[in-house]
């Protein structure tokens, strides 16, 4: 059985903005509010 960290480390990057909201909101989310973690998870 995989440990929690092994499961997490084997996860593939997710395009967060495909699910975060409508396209017109995306720029605003990024610029105004949210410190998105790009390094491991996102394809901006």
């Amino acid at each position, binding site marked *: 059985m995989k440990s929690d960290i092994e499961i997490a480390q084997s996860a593939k990057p997710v395009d*967060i903005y495909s699910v975060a909201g409508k396209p017109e909101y995306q720029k605003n989310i990024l610029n105004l509010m949210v410190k998105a973690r790009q390094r491991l998870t996102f394809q901006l």
Partner: protein
Amino acid sequence: MKSFIGKPKGKLILVTAITPTPAGEGKTTTTIGLADALSLTGRKTIVAIREPSLGPVFGIKGGAAGGGYSQVIPMEDINLHFTGDIHAIGAANNLLAAMIDNHIYQGNSLRIDPRRITWRRCMDMNDRQLRNIISGLGGATNGMPREDGFDITVASEVMAVLCLSESISDLKSRLSRIVIGYTYDGTPVTAGDLHAEGAMAALLRDAIKPNLVSTLGGTPALIHGGPFANIAHGCNSVIATKLALHFADYTVTEAGFGADLGAEKFFDIKCRAASLTPSAAVVVATVRALKMHGGAPKTSLSDENLSALSAGIPNLLRHVSNIRDVFGVPVVVAINRFPTDTQAELSLLRSTCAEAGVDAVISEVWEKGGEGGIELAERVAELCETKSNFRFAYSIDLSIAEKPNTIVKRIYRGVGVEFTPAAKKQLDKIEADGFGKLPVCVAKTQYSFSDDAQKLGAPEGFTVTVKNLRVSAGAGFIVALTGDIMTMPGLPKSPAAEYIDIDANGTISGLF
């Protein structure tokens, strides 16, 4: 910022739990899994949860990123420093501490009584050595010697302030109201009196912005703020919750500890302060923990024990009744299934809940991710369409003494509150200082409805003793301390830190 957080339009779902036991309930795991299940069933969903503190990560509890296939990622980043919010909060807290002592050193024009300074320093680590210290030693050029101490950063009022603020101006205003101690004649001294709020807010400029990550299932997750659920309100920031409500149709959030502490404060403090209306609640329970509430020893929780389970279920039903009948929020029970649960135990739990008019759904999100929570998601979505008659457990117009008394009677189901003589004096002072209209944040053990951690299950006939009252004027509540509440935990004999490592490639292991 205001344009986003001012228009909440989605459904707000609170995930809470039975009274915690060392057996674990899986609240964060259920929160994340439920969100993934809602996403899988075509519903636009965002998770809003707290940031992990380094203290538990290196201590005994571990991280706070969920578990199994219901996690937020990158879990090692989230569990280790993340975006530095908690460090920024520590810096703001300690800036205020430094300004207090510097004010005294420079002549003390405000006449702050060094014996009555209530503001403590903080750091994000479990370090019992720093709970009580003497600072300012070393002679006249090294400050005024006084009793001092450290709290863990998540117990700082600055954390609670950040999590209840809705804008930078609100943040500054709340910071300026923080009471740091009293003058020689007993007048409260605030951070504003020291002109500290501007610099503190400047340190928090980035920390006030929520952090966007994702779950393993690809659901957006806002992870922001992490106040303690005993001396503070125990849930993520208002900004993150309102942002999620603006962008998503369903926002799944959680509150710390059991529903008697976490949910009560979520409803009575956070929802009241931020004008939020929850649409539904989920109470997470495990067969293992309920057996422990029913008297089973921790060493035999893997064995089938229907009588212990039956004896422990009243704990669950009391929490459910509180949410449904006191707060008026539609509720469902999520049975977080463990491999050791037997069919007979699961059947007993579901049938007992059904007899009490409560839906109980088995959740397998730890093992299956969102797929393991489809039934729960469908039930929650149904509840969100029913009428929520949300109301608070007490009126804000009650006296400071009556508020915890009402919580004890209506939520904990005890006889009432007793105040020690010292606490009675504080009651009068708090009312006289003009803080009487604030809500009350009860700090008590999370292991029992009562203030005695040994009273498991659904105890009755007890009285809760309030020993001390603290003004958190910046956060906007009065803390009623019912015992020796730990604001600086210590490490266990074998801390998780001994098993965490990093290899030559920078890959971290041992986090859980």
